């Protein structure tokens, strides 16, 4: 294997190594010192970020480079998404450590599995051939199946994991089936070559379109889009909050990257076909996600349905098939990950010893118990609802612009109307925190690193909104806009 290949994939190799090292190191570390594992995982992420940032492949002025015979690609979009994956996973670790300790689940396997899942996410982000995409997808999925069942005692957890596994496998099967059709129609696994092959065909190739349908189904399942969303609320609810936090925040970025690579890099010439499919998926997700979320009393389920609607918004950015649109979509998915990390972080924060604060009522009177934490949650909720000047507004603004760019006024109008419907259940959380009396007066006591992380997370909602320019231009320029 030559070194250029190795260098381009250095972050992946580093994470792989560290995941194995942690797995083995745990054998030699006594239980009361398991904090070291946490530290090692954090250091892995920090170094991964450094390695990614030192991407020497840019030195010769190229914006992207491929490795391993074109099955792996490094480009600005991938780097940005990877950096945010590390960052958000770091937050997840800080939140999760507190949770896992509280619930006596502080085991190294959480870190190993999530690092393997991260590796899968990174592969998916950098995938440039159908095989790599499948590889990354399965690595992510299998690790998360195991994570969902992380609490062995929990029946709900096992049930959710089983459901996730069965449905996930089916979706993987569909995706694979679609890939085989694409391969059959174009004779290549490499996305660029697929694209070239398609551009030479006259169009109207039924096998291609069939393949595309199956690919879209696979993507929709992974992102949790209606009507392939059934697993999502159950998994979110059944999994331990620390795992829900992970599932909600990190793999969605890979899902976006997968959609971009498959649909645009590979099947860009079928834009007209997938645009229609995606617009319907987006509309259904936004409508159903927002309506169903209203009926929930469990905050994990509520956030699950809200995720569904957010993913619908992410799709809106893909519709025009332009650099601006993909930038908008990427911005949305990053912002969404930050918001959901904050929201689940708050759920963990309120989880007292041995009891998950998963009911909405657990948020009652939070303002009187601790006004700063209430303010953080309020910022996250306003941001999710898309109220200016929080960052969620700018994300919605950009994807709505994309939908209008694609000429889909009806979609933009339905999306904003249903985001008003959605505002209702976010406001309800704020109502509980600010307008109601607390049920319990017990003080909220969390470690200092948790406090710092959640504060940073909350401030980002406002800071990234007021100073939204930099992140927006990073996302836009990732696609050469």
């Amino acid at each position: 294997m030559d070194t250029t290949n190795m260098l381009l994939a250095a972050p992946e190799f580093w994470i792989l190594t560290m995941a194995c090292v942690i797995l083995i190191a745990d054998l030699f570390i006594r239980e009361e010192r398991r904090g070291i594992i946490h530290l090692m995982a954090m250091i892995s992420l920090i170094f991964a970020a450094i390695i990614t940032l030192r991407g020497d492949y840019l030195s010769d002025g190229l914006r992207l480079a491929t490795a391993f015979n074109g099955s792996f690609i490094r480009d600005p979009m991938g780097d940005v998404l990877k950096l945010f994956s590390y960052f958000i996973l770091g937050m997840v670790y800080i939140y999760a450590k507190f949770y896992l300790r509280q619930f006596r689940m502080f085991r190294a396997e959480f870190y190993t599995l999530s690092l393997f899942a991260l590796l899968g996410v990174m592969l998916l982000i950098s995938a440039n051939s159908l095989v790599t995409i499948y590889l990354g997808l399965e690595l992510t999925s299998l690790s998360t199946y195991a994570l969902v069942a992380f609490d062995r005692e929990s029946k709900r957890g096992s049930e959710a994991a089983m459901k996730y596994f069965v449905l996930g496998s089916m979706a993987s099967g569909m995706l694979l089936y679609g890939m085989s059709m694409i391969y059959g129609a174009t004779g290549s696994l490499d996305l660029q070559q697929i694209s070239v092959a398609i551009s030479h065909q006259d169009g109207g190739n039924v096998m291609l379109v069939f393949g595309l349908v199956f690919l879209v189904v696979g993507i929709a399942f992974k992102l949790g889009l209606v009507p392939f969303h059934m697993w999502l609320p159950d998994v979110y609810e059944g999994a331990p909050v620390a795992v829900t936090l992970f599932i909600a925040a990190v793999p969605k970025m890979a899902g976006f990257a997968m959609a971009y690579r498959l649909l645009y890099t590979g099947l860009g010439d079928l834009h007209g076909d997938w645009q229609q499919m995606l617009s319907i998926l987006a509309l259904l997700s936004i409508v159903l996600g927002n309506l169903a979320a209203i009926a929930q009393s469990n905050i994990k389920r509520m956030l699950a349905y809200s995720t569904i609607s957010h993913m619908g918004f992410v799709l809106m950015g893909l519709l025009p098939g332009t650099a601006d649109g993909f930038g908008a979509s990427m911005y949305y998915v990053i912002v969404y990950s930050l918001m959901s990390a904050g929201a689940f972080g708050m759920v963990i924060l309120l989880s007292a010893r041995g009891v998950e604060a998963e009911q909405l009522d657990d948020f009652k009177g939070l303002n009187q118990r601790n006004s700063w934490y209430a303010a953080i949650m309020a910022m996250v909720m306003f941001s999710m609802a898309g109220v200016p000047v929080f960052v969620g507004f700018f994300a919605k603004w950009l994807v709505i612009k994309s939908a209008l760019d694609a000429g889909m006024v009806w979609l933009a109008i339905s999306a904003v109307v249903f985001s008003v419907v959605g505002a209702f259940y976010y406001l309800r959380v704020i109502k509980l925190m600010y307008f109601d009396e607390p049920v319990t007066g017990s003080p909220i006591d969390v470690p200092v690193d948790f406090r710092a992380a959640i504060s940073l997370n909350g401030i980002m909602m406002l800071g990234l909104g007021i100073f939204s320019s930099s992140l927006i231009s990073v996302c836009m320029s990732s696609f050469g806009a």
Partner: protein
Amino acid sequence: MASNWPILSILIWLPILGGVAVLAVGDQRAALARLLALVVSALVFMFSIFMLTAFESSTAAMQFSELSPWIAALDVNYHLGVDGFSVPLIMLTTFFGVLVVIAGWEVIQERVQQYMAALLIMEGLMVGVFSALDALLFYVFFEATLIPMFLLIGMWGGPRRVYATIKFFLYTFLGSVFLLIGLIYLYIQSGTWSILEWHDFPLSLEVQIWLFLGFLAAFSVKIPMWPVHTWLPDAHVEAPTGGSVILAAIMLKIGGYGFIRLGLPITPDAAAALDWLIIALSLIAVVYIGFVALVQEDMKKLIAYASIAHMGFVTLGLFIAFAIFRNSEGGGGAALGVEGAMVQMISHGFISGALFLCVGVLYDRLHSRMIADYGGVASTMPWFASFTVLFFLANAGLPGTSGFVGEFMVILAAFQANFWYAFLAGLTMILGAAYSLWLVKRVIFGEVTSKAVAKLEDINAREALVLGTLAVAVLMLGLWPDPLVNLMHASVDQLLEHIQQPKFTLAGN
């Protein structure tokens, strides 16, 4: 030297940062929070007076402009500037900024720092709305004002506060998302977010009508116009006094201002084509809502409905111009309508703010807003009674008070368009007097009806200061409206000249 100051940025960010500082004071030191809030709002008011003195009223051009890139990737700028329309409204905002802090001084005892911070942040955001010249910036400020108001009503409001505040939020949110789509559409067409450039951007009539409907959705809810007014009485009734005052005195004006800044100049042909609709809705608001106000048993609700009726004059004044252009050569009188609308906005700000403060004074003492619970207040609270009677007379449009000037100008303008418009609008003189005076009769005069009323204490120095200031403002504006009218004269002329030029001819159809 001073003319180089970013005075508008100061007016926006000083109260917002001041609000954050007040929040940081914490729960334990309420006195400090109050004091800090007062200092900040007083400073802001001083800065705004400084702006007023430096403002050049002879030109319609934007002044104190600030322009720097905000979101460069999408051509969004941090672009501020004021003209004759915005300056009076900014002055109104900063003026009430001080008053509501004083009005909430003793009344608010729980979570004082959050209350004061919400008021201050709100003030900054509203100045932002009135000075933004970039459409996205305008929208951001426009929407962000919902958050502090939502919290104000929900945290310190009455028994049905949750219902009222969520209704308020969702209603206005729904209206404004259509505005957002319209703005994005304009950006895609024109490649800029600059409101001033949009004024000259040619658009076909069909596009203009859709855009205008988007503007209408947002601003009609905010003003509010019949039939999308139902959130207002609820919000007013449940809001704490300070919240009601801000809502009535300033937030409603955002809707009127939105028409002046965006609706009329960007889509003048659509506005001309649909002026019958707005005029009809305005007249319904004036007449029908006037009757509705008559039957209210809750004082705050009565004032809320009266507000809707009075705001009907604002929309009437703005849109009557198109009818006048059609009916008469030269369009004399159109300026009267627009200026009347502006005067009405400022005057209504003073009067409705004062009325809500009056009700607040009574509510603080008896914890009731029901008219039936009062009677003969004049005999126990003579000072309070004199102020209240003055404000209600102003509300009824008594000559010599500010309430008269705006309505009179609009009615005069309406005569130029159509006798019946003026006739219907003129009914307000009867209706306004009816609901105002009848309330005064039942609450202020008559026999002392209950022991509780007999024990009432008259207003203290703090309350007298607040009401007295407003009384002076109402009388000043009523007796000598010239300074206010002169302030906006150039801008009004420019607006009218602009909206007479059809835009769609340039767009090619």
